[in-house]
């Protein structure tokens, strides 16, 4: 009975591993097939091992999309961290009159579907000349990253004892010194959570880039992939090489920081 159970458990585990893992395996395997091999053997795994598709992807200028995505992600994540930590400090540790209302408003921001904001953002950006610029994509992404980030940091901030503020003030520290000198270093775990969470979200983001970018040389990776697909839908192996290239950064960070990564991607959402 016990061995049967074990066998059953192992077969289910294996079957699920195929279902969940096969597509990525297929991406890697097919990206290593020269186009001719793909036409003769479209499904067979690792029937050829060649890096020519990767060379082709670089020749086609995929690194431009890579650079754009990197710029947007870095900028958005840094600004989100700064704004979210400072705002949380004000909301939790400084007593402003509107703190309660503002907190509620920011939390409500988590529920807003981006679609309800697309048209006005599109028109606004045309009017202030940031349409079709990387900064124009970064700004709304920052805005939509702020609510969840403020939520995560505020919760963390509440657990930091108020005595720390009072002690610092007794020593004559200003609010700025208290924030940068005492709070910011203590917030490290919360900051790493929002860096991973918003970083991955923004790296993979699609709809704002779709609406707010027009020139191919401004495209982010997801738009670039779509462009590749439209242009060479025949050259599947090259497309998959591009897809895998785009995924390498996320997979590497995942493998290095596994537990932290998983907690970040889900932790924020659970509490919301």
């Amino acid at each position, binding site marked *: 009975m016990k061995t049967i159970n074990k066998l059953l458990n192992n077969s289910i585990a294996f079957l699920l591993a195929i279902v969940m893992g096969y597509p990525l395996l297929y991406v890697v395997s097919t990206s290593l097939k020269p186009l001719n091999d793909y036409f003769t053997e479209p499904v067979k795994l690792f029937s050829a091992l060649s890096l020519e598709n990767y060379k082709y992807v670089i020749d086609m200028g995929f690194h431009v999309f890579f650079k754009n995505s990197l710029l947007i992600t870095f900028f958005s994540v840094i600004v989100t961290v700064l704004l979210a930590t400072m705002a949380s400090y004000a909301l939790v540790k400084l007593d402003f009159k509107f703190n309660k209302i503002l907190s509620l408003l920011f939390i409500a921001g988590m529920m807003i579907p981006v679609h309800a904001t*697309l048209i006005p953002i599109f028109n606004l950006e045309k009017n202030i000349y940031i349409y079709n610029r990387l900064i124009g994509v970064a700004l709304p992404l920052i805005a939509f990253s702020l609510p969840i980030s403020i939520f995560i940091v505020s919760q963390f901030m509440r657990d930091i004892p108020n005595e720390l503020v009072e002690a610092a003030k007794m020593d004559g520290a200003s609010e700025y010194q208290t924030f940068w000198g005492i709070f910011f270093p203590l917030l490290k775990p919360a900051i790493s959570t929002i860096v991973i969470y918003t970083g991955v979200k923004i*790296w993979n983001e699609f709809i704002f880039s779709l609406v707010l970018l027009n020139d191919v040389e401004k495209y982010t990776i997801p*738009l670039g992939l779509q462009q590749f697909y439209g242009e060479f839908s025949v050259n599947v192996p090259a*497309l998959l090489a591009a897809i895998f290239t*785009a995924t390498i950064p996320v997979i590497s960070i995942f*493998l290095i920081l596994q537990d932290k990564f998983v907690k970040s991607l*889900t932790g924020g*959402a659970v509490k919301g």
Partner: protein
Amino acid sequence: MVGVNPRPKSLKGDYMKKFKNSKITLFIVFLLPTCLVFSTFILYPIFSTFINSFFDWSGLSANKTFIGLTNYINLFQDSSFKATLVNNLYVIITSVLFQIPLGLVLALVIVKNNVRNKLLSIIYFLPYLLSTMAVGLVWTLFYDPYFGVVNNALKWIGVENWQITWLADPKTALIAVLIVVVWFYAPFYMVILRAALVGVPKSLYEAADIDGASKTQQFFKITLPTIKPTLVTSSILSIVGSLKSFDIFYIMTNGGPGTSTELVGTYMYKQAFVNYKMGYASSIAFVMFLITLLVSVFVKTFNRRRGQA
């Protein structure tokens, strides 16, 4: 020099210090930037969407004609819009009925801490690392009638007459995309539910073992009731998430064939940025906002009441 005229200097220093530490300055430094970004890219757009929904407006020119509730009246007579609501409902139902159970099965498989499960949890989590664009494109290739993995697999197991053009057939397109959505988001629920499973006290199972309860009984009498709050949270997350779905549908079928996979989000996008009916699209966007808001508020009050009981 220092001792000669200390007073004005220190006064100036005091003044600066007072200014720097005044409430207004603190507010400007710590909160104002966030408030500005938030109101420019979230509050103002929502408000503006609401206003635009009362206008006939192409978005290409500044010409706007006030038409009152006409957009909303048209919207509720628009059969395509009705189709999008029904499809969105399907997304919600599938998410709750399949995504979460698949997540639970995955979580149950890897719940014990050992080397095998460590490796499995990496594999099971992989889909969630891909971008929606990558997922959409890869699965579009999978469903390709000739080179696709799906039809080749069907041929291999000998049911060749099941080979169809999955995404081009209105009868199968929605199911085909929903399978992808379930596959993509299941790892997310796996992680949440695994954390809940680990939290079930071991003593409960030990006591049940002594009483001679079978594993199946233990699962339904101990495991499920204990993780019920997490199952409820997961359902809420997946309902709210489903209301906003867009990417994978847009990429794989763009709402087609016909309106068979059209969602509120994809329909709104089409009306605004393909057909240039921005006034009409604004009314769709605002209805979408209202539905999400209503569901969220309903869920919050429902949750609170449950918490008090």
